[in-house]
């Protein structure tokens, strides 16, 4: 019996080692891709949910629902406080896309409350819908329901129409405003 030459045995061993290493590398690569994919899926939520975030000099965020743009949010500065579950913004501008209306809400400052998913906008708040402009000192919006509320004064003006009062519910999706007390309305007749 002829023993295999030493070089041939050595070559066989190297080949097997190479095969094992290749398989191991393949398994590791697949595992790596799997965990990388998972990491990307949850990336935005993780950043928003676990770590503070500070953006200065302009930010833009948007949300899609069923393939359609639901709302967009932009402003100057953005600070997220994870321990309090809220974000603060300056000069916020929220565009809400409802089936029949596109509504623009602006103010000087805003807070987003992650728990209730409400955005509270304050100081010189303006709501523009169709030809109307609504002005109020403060407003709280449920972005999912597209309903805004406030307890303070509101003044709604359009072409030839002025409505004022205190306390309101603004259904942005339906383009309907309810003023809850002290209503004064003016309708100017055509010249």
């Amino acid at each position, binding site marked *: 019996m002829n023993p295999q030459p030493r070089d041939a045995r050595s070559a066989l061993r190297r080949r097997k080692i190479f095969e094992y290493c290749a398989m191991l590398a393949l398994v590791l690569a697949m595992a790596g891709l799997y965990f990388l994919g998972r990491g990307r899926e949850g990336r935005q939520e993780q950043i928003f949910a676990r770590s503070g975030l500070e953006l200065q000099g302009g930010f833009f965020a948007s949300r899609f629902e069923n393939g359609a743009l639901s709302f967009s949010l932009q402003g100057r500065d953005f600070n997220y406080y994870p321990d309090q579950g809220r974000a603060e913004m300056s000069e916020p501008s929220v565009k809400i896309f409802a089936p*029949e209306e596109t509504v623009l809400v602006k103010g000087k400052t805003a807070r987003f409350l992650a728990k209730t998913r409400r955005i509270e906008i304050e100081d010189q708040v303006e709501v523009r819908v169709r030809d109307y402009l609504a002005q109020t000192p403060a407003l709280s919006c449920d972005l999912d329901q597209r309903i805004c509320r406030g307890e303070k004064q509101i003044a709604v003006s359009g072409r030839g129409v002025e*409505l004022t009062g205190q306390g309101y519910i603004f259904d942005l999706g*339906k383009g309907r405003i*309810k*003023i809850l007390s002290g*209503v*004064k309305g003016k309708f*100017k*007749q055509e010249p």
Partner: protein
Amino acid sequence: MKKILTVLLVALLAPAAMAQAGKGKSEVAFSGFTWAPGELVEINADKMSVSLSERRAEFEGKVLVKKGKSLIYCDRLAVNYLESGQVQRLNAQGSVKLVEGKSFATGDELEYLKDQDKIWLKGSPELASEGQILLGELMVFDLNHNKLLVENPRIQFSRNSNESPQK
């Protein structure tokens, strides 16, 4: 069979109308309700709801409409208006009272259509002016033609014509 009385205000409410007109020309009651160009219609109420797409505003609770020389008091008021703000239709319901000078009318429902320039007063309407009270089932103030139409009219006269009847 329903009786219908068409009244040129000279016949029924002539004294009041003449006094209001002040020019020797009789005018139908609430002629001040006719629109003046650029005039403001002011409405006060406890609360309201407006549909921006339908251009329809609904006022509720202690509603007061100030329009020219006329005032309307009611519990609920619906206003339909054009894009320009021009009021096209008013519908007042619940304890309706329309006041102009010393004349006033009451009923359950009032409807005004600008394109017809008419006021319909329904629900036991009463018109009082200068000691005279006109009652009926329906009153239509035709502001454009200076006429008042009353269904099933009844007239009451106060003993002292200087006393304005109070409701």
